[in-house]
């Protein structure tokens, strides 16, 4: 019986073995964070990070494969080995650095912003008794927990889209989120949503999340990224998706 189980396990692993070809890397993303990553109308994963990731892989001579994973388990599943890197608008933070490694940044630090329904008075300097929305397991969630949890209610949502839906429906007073996705929402809401107060800088730039032990891979990706930064490809993509920049080319 024991031998049977063992051989079954081995058979499964044989099936899995060819997957680990060394020149393919698998990148994890969320698919719900426009313009970083999203599903376009043809049902394909698209966005700034998809274009950039493919460019990086091409430069580094690797084949890229995209894996869509929900945000709240995106780091555990990197460590469990379902993919080799995370490109999902993830900011560099000290907390995350304890468990994973980061490549060099591919999008500079952008302030996190607050949004509220138009005409809804919110005084950021004296938040009290308000419902504050964040996406769970983000830098903004940690920030809100630290600064507002004592006097306010914090609602954490599985996805960014859900938090926006609750803001639009008036179930939360303020939404604290990453500046760029929030900007596209506020601009697209045709005046229904407005920014409140100034943003806060939380966390570092956006970078590829990697397992700590994959030092070689990090080097490879970093040199490809550096080449793309200096030849202007990164800035071109940022211009295309965010209408900002240039940041990296001289």
């Amino acid at each position, binding site marked *: 019986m024991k031998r049977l189980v063992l051989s079954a396990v081995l058979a499964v692993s044989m099936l899995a073995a060819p997957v680990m070809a060394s020149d393919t890397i698998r990148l994890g993303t969320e698919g719900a964070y426009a313009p970083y990553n999203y599903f376009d109308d043809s049902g394909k994963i698209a966005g700034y990070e998809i274009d950039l990731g493919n460019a990086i892989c091409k430069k580094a001579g690797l084949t890229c494969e995209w894996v869509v994973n929900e945000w*709240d388990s995106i*780091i*555990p599943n990197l460590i469990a080995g379902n993919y080799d890197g995370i490109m999902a608008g993830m900011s560099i933070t000290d907390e995350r650095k304890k468990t994973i490694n980061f490549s060099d940044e591919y999008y500079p630090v952008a302030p996190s912003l607050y949004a509220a329904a138009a005409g809804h008075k919110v005084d950021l300097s004296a938040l009290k008794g308000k419902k504050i929305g964040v996406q769970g397991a983000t830098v903004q969630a940690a920030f809100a927990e630290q600064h507002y949890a004592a006097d306010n209610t914090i609602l954490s949502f599985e996805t960014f889209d859900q938090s926006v839906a609750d803001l639009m429906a*008036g179930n939360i007073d303020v939404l604290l989120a990453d500046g760029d996705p929030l900007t596209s929402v506020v601009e697209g809401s045709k005046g229904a949503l407005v920014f409140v107060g100034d943003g806060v800088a939380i966390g570092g730039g956006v970078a590829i999340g990697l397992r700590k032990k994959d030092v070689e891979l990090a080097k490879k990706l970093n040199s490809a990224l550096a080449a793309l930064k200096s030849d202007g490809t990164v800035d071109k993509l940022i211009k295309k998706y965010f209408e900002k920049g240039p940041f990296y080319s001289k």
Partner: protein
Amino acid sequence: MFETLQQTAFVQDIIILAKPALFNLYFALASIPMGFPFAVLLAIGKASPNRLFSLVSRGYIYAFRGSPLFIQFFMCYSIMLALNQSVWKPLGINHIMLHPLFLGPFVLVLNTSAYAAEIFYGALKTVPKGEVEAAQAYGMSRWNVFRIVTWPNMLRLAWPAYTNEMVFLFHATTLVYFTLPVINEQKDLMNKASELFERDYNVFLHFSVAALYFLLISIFIFWLAGLMQKHLNRHITGEKVRLFFKPRYLR
């Protein structure tokens, strides 16, 4: 050395997960008192000779038994959200309606009452005809026939299956925070166990402790319901009523 470490981690988990377990208990305990009368009404509706009542009850029971609770949760939350600006806000009850501590039990009641109604309906159909006829022959009013004959019989017949349903309901509480926003530190067993897992990737420890809580509380529900079963069957002599944990498997 390793053994003791594991042991303390185990004990620690038991302590950490005690509060989240209360949330699962809360969701179940808040749903049962509402779900029970609603289910009885639906069962009577389904058995009613009135075509309209019967049709509505049948449709409701079929729909909520025929679709997954997971979808019902998503659907109810998004509908509640869509109604927020136009209905809940003007009424001033928006904070209650969208709160998981209200909405969770609300959806659970919608769901469990359909299942329980089917159980009670089945029991209503098997209430001994002779007893009802005897009561009618005594000249009892319809209300008295129901109160004195039909109701206690139905309850007694339905009780084992209803016990089972309560355990299913308790297990279904795990879905609340997979679908609704988490407020502050209000987390249930699955939620907290996943969170602990994401911290140290110890699969076996955290989920086992959560499973242990579910198992113990399930056994407790079976035991408590067994006492009630004994009470309901107190007039029946001869037949020995099993008090023990004997789970049924069909929902």
